[in-house]
């Protein structure tokens, strides 16, 4: 189905099932521990062996010798694979650094060998007996230094585009502005830190490979595994029905899957591998650190006349920049504009997508800058944002937003939160030992179109089965897909079985970039339209007029049970959603507002969140239960990036030092108070037939800045370097003693 014109009325508009709160259909499995994750598939015929990954001990250099004899002689060892044994490997389209290093080492903890043994304990022990000599060479590990000589770069998602995005004359307008802000911000490297480690089981049957894995994007993983192994894609099957969190870390083929496949081939047995937690931060990808400069010029009345946002980040050679300026191109008005990205080569581990790549880091900076500018103008930060709202793409004014409810998000949020109680003078509100502050930020994240396919079957018993390689990484895919098929076919949700995460099923959007829910359900919609046609034809109805409801098909003065259509044999509909030019004609984005109240301990400087509210406008909300959880989860991650998360770089040895869950702190229960989320009514007919957009990343974008702005309101101290930890402002708190 090609989606090329705005969606008209369609069966989803009934919203008898879609858009209603429905508990997750996978809930009973997940809460009882019976949902199988990658490492847990037991039903193989041959006995599984265990693989353990050996990570490089240096960040940059060359392996001069690997001595494996001691490991090979250790009890239970079946095989050891290094780059040398593996032979020539390709590199996946979406991998920057090689997944199996050697003899060159590209980054710390890059996999350089896998040891396969009969038991987990034996494999782990033998991995420690692989002795490696390195010729360590100098690497580039300091972003600030590397950026001094770095070139401008193009955001690969915005290509083709000029290296500088300019509108009007930014420099002149900024120089002439009545009120100016010129400030620099930094965000550190972040780790996805999903709870399920990277894990895979690989089994060969002749030249056919099956991999049970934990991957957000089945077809990308399958393609890149085939490329890396140099075998036809048709010979590779990936299965990933449950994914224990991804956040972008599992978008790509990673070392666990590749080494399980190589280990299984070498051992002649199926092999399972889970990446040890202490290896994850350096072996895999992370959200790259940024250094950002923002300049805003306004007239005395608070109208933005110039806005400039320049961001620099680093990556392995051949990598890409963190597109931290993308929201600045679209969020606020302003006649003169400049946005640029700079990319430095670094020898730290590979930087890549993490939840809301670009906007997450960019909004952390931009929304502090907006707060600072509002203060310079003596304006309320909500009012300043409202004043500079734009109904059109500021770079291409002929291009409108399909839907844009930013102002409503801000104003309704302010009302609900009691924003008027905020004291605009910082450092004034005390509650015992606590300095109390309010903060606000806009939320913004683009919506992305992705083609997505599905197959929907009507069984002889009238039961509906949906099959797609879409994944559920906690996003609620199982449930919203069941709701979509139930709505389209006119059956209750429990008459629908959803099967996901198998490359034997039609290729879907996959899970990433908050594009999963809207596009995957649109693909299911398309397949359901096909199935409805087949049903109507079989039962002799005019497909365009037939109504599917209550397990029946009705048209004209006739009605038949849906299951009758399959009485003579199962019917199936398969299709995919594809997109025309609507997303070029219109800008498809999601908007929101974040409000935060927090306390800063006047003695120690620790920050404790008290209240948080998000108001979101993101198209049709397919299931308010799972959508709300996506938003509160994103806010929680935003709290982490605001207050504690930082991969600490050792600039001498070139690695992330705090590479486990004790060292890399993410929020715990005690950090997060009750969270409130409001979804505004919206149905975006330019997006897809579901009239839905993404929402899973919107809740992250801007939240960190709302925290930063609240810390400022509480203390009068502006921190522009994340995370906002007490050591950065302790000396500026009121004196004690």
């Amino acid at each position, binding site marked *: 189905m090609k989606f090329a014109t705005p969606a008209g009325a369609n069966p989803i508009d009934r919203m008898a099932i879609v858009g209603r709160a429905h508990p997750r259909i996978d809930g009973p499995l997940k809460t009882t521990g*019976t949902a199988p994750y990658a490492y847990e598939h037991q039903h193989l015929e041959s006995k599984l062996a265990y693989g353990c990954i050996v990570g490089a001990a240096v960040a940059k250099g060359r392996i001069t010798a690997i001595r494996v004899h001691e490991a090979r002689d250790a009890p239970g060892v079946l095989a050891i694979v290094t780059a040398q044994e593996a032979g020539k490997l390709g590199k996946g389209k979406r991998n920057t650094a090689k997944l199996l290093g050697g003899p060159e080492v590209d980054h710390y903890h890059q996999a350089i060998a896998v040891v396969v043994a009969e038991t987990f304990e034996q494999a782990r022990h033998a991995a420690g007996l692989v002795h490696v000599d390195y010729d360590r060479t100098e690497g580039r590990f300091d972003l600030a230094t590397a950026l001094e000589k770095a070139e401008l770069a193009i955001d690969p998602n915005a290509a083709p585009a000029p290296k500088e995005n300019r509108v009007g004359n930014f420099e002149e307008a900024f120089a002439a502005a009545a009120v100016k802000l010129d400030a620099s911000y930094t965000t550190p490297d972040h780790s996805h830190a999903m709870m399920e480690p990277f894990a895979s089981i690989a089994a060969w049957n002749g030249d056919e490979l099956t991999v049970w894995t934990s991957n957000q994007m089945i077809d990308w993983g399958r393609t890149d595994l085939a490329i890396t192994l140099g075998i036809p894609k048709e010979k590779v099957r990936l299965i990933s029905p449950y994914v*224990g969190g991804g956040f972008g870390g599992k978008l790509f083929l990673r070392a666990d899957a590749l080494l399980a496949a190589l280990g299984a081939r070498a051992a002649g047995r199926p092999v399972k591998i889970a990446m040890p937690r202490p290896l994850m931060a350096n072996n895999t990808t992370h959200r790259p650190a940024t250094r950002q400069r923002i300049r805003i010029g306004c007239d005395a009345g608070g109208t933005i006349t110039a806005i400039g946002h320049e961001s620099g980040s680093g990556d392995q050679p051949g990598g890409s920049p963190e597109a931290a300026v993308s929201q600045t191109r679209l969020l606020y008005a302003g006649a003169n504009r400049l946005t640029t990205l700079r990319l430095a080569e670094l020898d730290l581990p590979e930087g890549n997508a993490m939840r809301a790549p670009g906007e997450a880091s960019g909004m952390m900076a931009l929304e502090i800058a907006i707060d600072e500018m509002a203060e310079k103008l003596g304006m309320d930060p909500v009012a300043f944002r409202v004043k500079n709202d734009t109904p059109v793409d500021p770079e291409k004014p002929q291009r409108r937003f399909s839907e844009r409810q930013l102002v409503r998000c801000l104003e309704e949020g302010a009302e609900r939160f009691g924003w008027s109680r905020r004291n605009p003078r910082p450092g004034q509100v005390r509650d015992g030992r606590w300095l109390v502050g309010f903060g606000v930020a806009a939320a913004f994240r683009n919506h992305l179109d992705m083609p997505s396919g599905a197959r929907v079957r009507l069984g002889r018993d009238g039961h509906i089965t949906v099959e797609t390689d879409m994944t559920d990484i906690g996003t609620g895919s199982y449930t919203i897909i069941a709701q979509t098929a139930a709505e389209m076919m006119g059956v209750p949700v429990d008459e629908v079985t959803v099967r996901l995460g198998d490359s034997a099923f039609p290729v879907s959007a996959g899970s990433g970039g908050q594009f999963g829910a809207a596009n995957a359900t649109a693909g299911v919609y398309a397949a359901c339209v096909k199935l409805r046609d087949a049903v109507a034809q079989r039962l002799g109805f005019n497909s365009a007029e037939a109504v599917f409801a209550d397990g029946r098909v009705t048209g004209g003065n006739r009605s038949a049970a849906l299951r009758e259509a399959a009485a003579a044999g199962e019917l199936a509909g398969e299709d995919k959603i594809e997109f025309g030019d609507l997303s070029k004609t219109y800008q498809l984005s999601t908007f929101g507002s974040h409000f935060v109240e927090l306390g800063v301990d006047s003695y120690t400087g620790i920050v404790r969140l008290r209240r948080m509210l998000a108001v979101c406008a993101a198209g049709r909300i397919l299931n308010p*239960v799972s959508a709300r959880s996506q938003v509160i989860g994103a806010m929680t991650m935003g709290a982490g990036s605001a207050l504690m998360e930082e991969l600490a770089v050792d600039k001498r040895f070139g690695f992330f030092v705090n590479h486990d869950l004790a060292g890399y702190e993410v929020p715990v229960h005690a950090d997060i108070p009750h*969270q409130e989320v409001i979804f505004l009514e919206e149905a975006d007919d330019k997006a897809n037939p579901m009239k839905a957009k993404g929402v899973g990343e919107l809740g992250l974008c801007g939240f960190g800045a709302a925290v930063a702005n609240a810390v400022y309101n509480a203390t009068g101290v502006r921190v522009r370097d994340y995370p906002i930890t007490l050591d950065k402002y302790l000396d500026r708190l009121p004196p004690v003693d």
Partner: protein
Amino acid sequence: MMPVRFKVNGESRELTLDPRTTLLDALREHLHLTGTKKGCDHGQCGACTVIAGGRRINACLSLALQHDGDAITTIEGLGTPDKLHPMQAAFVKHDGYQCGYCTPGQVCSAVAVLDEIARGVPSHVQADLLQRPQASNIEMRERMSGNICRCGAYSNIAEAMADVAGGRG
């Protein structure tokens, strides 16, 4: 290899294990009770929480041999998809999970936390250590802090627990 016997979810089990085998790996790899999850294997996440001898512990930081003779309850011992434990049902009702990987540990911990509060085990957030703790929001959040949920379902988990605690009276 050494023998070990314990009761898991009421059933006597005997295993002969490499002494290095943790309780977690004994459950997952030898008894195929994979509901208990391995998130970090270093006591930093809580996904492996089980109840041993009536107390919740991190199964990853215990050798199986240390539990010879113990009674162990895992997530599989609390309820099944057809017959959910009240805490499991409350997690479903309040959407107290997303990806589901930390969930069995959260559920085991939540059950144990309500028991700990009932038994008067003190916590960091108690204003007065000599008063009996209550199942308040902040008490439950503090006591649940050894169970990390990167999907950020904390707010919903607290509501699920409050539901169960309230129902208990």
